[in-house]
């Protein structure tokens, strides 16, 4: 395990050095994230300026939702953004390289890239949460801050392992892009819209099968004292369990997937 961690650190170090070659790319990427987030928040602002709230969630509460998602998403954006492109690696036969080396293919795949853009997510997320915190006049206890921090960690694990799990489907069906798009679409809505906007059945389905709401929505219902979309007060505390199950599933899927894998032959 320790050996693997050290190796992973080395891979990431190489990826960072490779990225350093393109500095203007970094600035443009940062600018991109800032504009993207600003546009999304403006859109919500336009709506809520007229309609005051979205199922009981006011503008600053949604900013908080957005900020918390960004923070929780930043590890994925920095380190694991490329996991969603496993399909292309398989189609172009790049995966074969990993198999020839005396090292875990999953580790090589995970350690392949580093994206600065995740840093912008982190910075922007922290400032969004801080601003919303001030506007909402909140005063969290250390215990609540601890809960917030843990929720972010579990959220990050849930997002990363879930996307890894979905992309592993391409070992079998060859092209998992549509499945991934469906999942990512839910992930794009999570930061901006509380789960309450959906009908009850869809809320249950999304909570159970596309659990991105654990990254921001469920912990915030606890911290902001709101009823959650399922009306079951224990649901937000399932996050560690969901994280553990998804991690185990994604590892198993990778192991099985590699066994089932037949090269594209290109």
């Amino acid at each position, binding site marked *: 395990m320790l050996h693997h961690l050290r190796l992973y650190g080395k891979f990431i170090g190489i990826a960072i050095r490779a990225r350093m070659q393109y500095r203007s790319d970094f600035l443009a990427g940062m600018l991109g994230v800032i*504009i993207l987030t600003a546009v999304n928040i403006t859109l919500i602002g336009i709506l809520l300026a007229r309609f005051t709230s979205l199922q009981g969630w006011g503008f600053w509460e949604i900013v908080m939702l957005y900020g918390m998602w960004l923070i929780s998403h930043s590890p994925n954006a920095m380190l694991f953004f490329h996991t969603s492109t496993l399909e292309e690696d398989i189609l172009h036969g790049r995966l074969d390289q990993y198999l020839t080396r005396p090292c875990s293919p999953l580790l090589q795949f995970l350690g392949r890239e580093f994206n600065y853009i995740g840093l912008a997510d982190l910075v922007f997320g922290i400032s969004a949460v801080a601003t919303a915190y001030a506007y909402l006049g909140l005063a969290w206890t250390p215990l609540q801050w601890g809960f917030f921090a843990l929720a972010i960690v579990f959220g990050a694990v849930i997002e990363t392992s879930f996307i890894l799990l979905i992309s592993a489907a391409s070992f079998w069906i060859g092209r998992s892009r549509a499945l991934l798009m469906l999942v990512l679409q839910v992930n794009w809505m999570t930061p901006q819209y509380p789960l309450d906007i959906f009908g009850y059945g869809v809320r249950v389905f999304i909570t159970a099968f596309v659990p991105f709401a654990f990254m921001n929505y469920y912990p915030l219902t606890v911290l902001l004292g709101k009823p959650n979309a399922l009306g079951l007060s224990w649901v937000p505390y399932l996050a560690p369990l969901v994280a553990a199950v998804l991690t185990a599933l994604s590892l198993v899927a990778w192991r099985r997937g590699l066994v089932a894998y037949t090269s594209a032959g290109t």
Partner: protein
Amino acid sequence: MRILRGFIRTAFRDAAIYRIDFWLSLLSVFFLMYAIASIWAILYRQSPNAFGVTLRQMMTYGVLGVLLAPIMQTTGQARSYIANQVRSGLIEIDLMKPLDFMAHMLARNVGEVCVLFVLRVIPGFLFAVLFLGIQLPASPVSAAAFGVSVAFGYLVFFGINFMIGLLALITHDIRSYTWAYNAIARFASGELIPLWLFPPLLGAIVGALPFQAIYFVPMTIYIGAHTDSLATTLFTQLGWVVGVLLVCRLVWQRCQRRIAVQGG
């Protein structure tokens, strides 16, 4: 014409290979339409008069945005194609082809647009009419006007994407800018929220940009919320088409000279 048919046939064959892909994409369109319709319904319940139009019109607007998106987004391929060719240095080969470059870029997507129309837009539209209760066009005239307007919108979007692609000739790599560009295009085109809900100043700025001709104009025509007469609205949009494509042509001619001077 035979080339076009060739493009269309290959596009359909490509789509037929990946069936799971087809069903899942459809599901994802359904989900998005459902989500957008729910959001508008919730907002409407809070203050029914803040829309300026009826709930049904508003939901129709939102759902149309989802339905048109896959088609409109194919114009982005002109952008990524040019950028890729520039990056790999193959753009000279495109110049040698006995085809007008802009026409070639536009024709490349015809096949895909047809596939998307048959496999995504039609089933999506039926789903939306049956289950989400969106309205049909008010009359055959407004249906026809909507069709024309979508085509105009497509051309405007194509022109903008073409120009952004040409940026690659100057900056060599545009991939990192595309995020910001896509966000702005989504925002200013009225794909998600109609321009009349914007605050006055922002609405005025966005209204003066070409992006609103992409989604906002056709979708307001469909729900019958256009403020000018139908003819004026369409002619203004046509003005944007001509303007954008003319600028494209000029920029392209200058770029061509630039490439020639560098001498591949």
